[in-house]
């Protein structure tokens, strides 16, 4: 892989996936629209889609335990745009980690755009940890645009934890996540988002708690700096005896704008749904405390934001 990627491309790959060399097990590394490297393992089969769409199918055999799949995407060709479909079929009684993510380095003057549609079919009693990191850089005037869509179907007693992070660098993003959760299933989301300059970020979650004793917890931590704008929507529909909670906690700075729209809808009298949303500046007392330990105001601010998005 070192022969294929230059230094900055390797850096991009490391930032979004942690990879510095090809991993063991199953992986698909996508680079400027093509598979740079792909491998299946005994239990995890990755194949190019056969329906004409761009993307891959990932089949995980039932009972697969403690394996990790890497499917990072990196792009550094200015003007490259793509729409990619990745479908995950996770067999019953599995426990796997999936590391996705997209890094765009755009040094040109044309917009680069990655639209990824990931669909998860999580089998009964299976546990999935899904990590998705989005990152952009580059000195060009072309925009870096990412629009990830995540569709999740969790079967009985299944569990998915989705950790999605976008810290700086993406000019525009529309992040859509729709999940349906069957009986005793759980869907956890931890979103971390930082926008700056004139960036725009929109996240929209919709979780349907269909099964008895299903649950969800959607937690978003967001920081909007400069003139950036954010729109957060979390809809939780309780369609059975279930428990749902959403929390949007946002720090607003400079001339930024943040809108938080939490929606909870109980379609069953046994649904328990809670939403919390808070937007505010960094508390002055927090800055004063850290300054009283010898930090400058700017250093204090950076520590507070870094901790908040930890």
């Amino acid at each position, binding site marked *: 892989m070192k022969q294929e990627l230059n230094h900055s491309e390797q850096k991009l790959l490391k930032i979004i996936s942690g990879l510095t060399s090809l991993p063991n097990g199953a992986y698909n590394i996508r680079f400027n629209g093509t598979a740079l490297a792909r491998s299946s393992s005994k239990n995890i089969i990755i194949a190019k889609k056969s329906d004409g769409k761009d993307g891959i199918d990932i089949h995980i055999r039932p009972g697969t335990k403690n394996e990790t799949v890497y499917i990072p995407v990196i792009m550094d060709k200015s003007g490259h745009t793509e729409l990619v479909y990745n479908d995950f079929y996770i067999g019953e009684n599995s426990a796997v980690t999936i590391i996705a993510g997209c890094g765009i380095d755009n040094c040109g003057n044309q917009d680069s755009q990655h639209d990824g549609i990931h669909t998860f079919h999580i089998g009964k009693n299976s546990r999935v940890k899904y990590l998705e990191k989005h990152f952009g850089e580059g000195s060009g005037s072309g925009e870096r645009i990412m629009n990830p869509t995540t569709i999740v179907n969790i079967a009985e007693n299944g569990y998915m934890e989705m950790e999605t992070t976008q810290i700086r660098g993406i000019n525009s993003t529309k992040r859509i996540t729709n999940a349906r959760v069957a009986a005793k299933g759980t869907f956890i989301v931890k979103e971390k988002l930082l926008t700056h300059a004139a960036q725009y970020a929109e996240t929209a979650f919709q979780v349907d708690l269909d099964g008895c004793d299903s649950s969800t917890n959607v937690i978003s*931590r967001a920081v909007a700096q400069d003139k950036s704008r954010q729109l957060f929507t979390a809809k939780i529909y309780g369609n059975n005896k279930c428990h749902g909670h959403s929390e949007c*906690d946002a720090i607003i700075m400079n001339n930024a704008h943040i809108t938080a729209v939490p929606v909870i809808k109980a379609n069953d009298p046994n649904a328990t749904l809670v939403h919390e949303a808070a937007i505010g500046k960094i*508390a002055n*007392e*927090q800055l*004063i*405390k*850290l*300054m*009283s*330990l*010898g*930090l*400058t*105001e700017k250093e204090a601010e950076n*520590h*507070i934001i*870094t*901790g*908040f*998005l*930890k």
Partner: protein
Amino acid sequence: MLELKHLSFTVNEGKNTKHILSDINLSINDKKTVVITGPNGGGKSTLAKIIMGIEKPSSGEIFFHNKNITDWSITQRANYGISFAFQQPVRFKGIGVKELLSLAAGNELSTKGACEYLAEVGLCAADYVGRDVDTSLSGGEIKRIEIATILARKNTQLAIFDEPEAGIDLWSFQKLIQVFEKMHEMHHTILIISHQERILNIADEIILIANGQIQQVGKKDVIIPQLVSIAGSCNIYKGVKDQ
């Protein structure tokens, strides 16, 4: 030496000007433990905040080690050796106990290093070192962590504690006294705002502030009996807070 010269602090309430502190003149010698006491609303906390730079005086000057620090920022004062333990410690989402102690120390502390500071304030270190300084901590726990941040600051020459006893249970009180005694042995200058008789008892000097003015300054042997004698009208001096 810390010197306050003609220090006043006023706030505007509508058309009226309220005098919180009026013409405070005070010298605190190095390596002394000084306790400021007096009724609530008398201006004690404001005075402490002015010394740290959190509030700006309306008039007057502050000298520390012969430097006029009146216009210095909080950061400058901190780096010049002034530390401040808040009456109501601040909570942070996502900043851990160990990280906060490391920030106070000015370098990354080892777990063992952080634990030593926590043990000094009576916290079972293993239970706290991995936790965040957030709302999951009780009032007493966060208060003791606040005091530990002062212990972690290596360059402290003047340590200010604003009502350190607030929220501290009786069990931990002796630990708190030991903290002050140890700092005293290390030749720190300590300025404590307190109503607690047991803290008044460790003072080299006691300053009574009421109505924004210094009412009395003296050795504890002289001041404490007077405070106790007026405690009939104001019970705060027997360690019972009136709030």
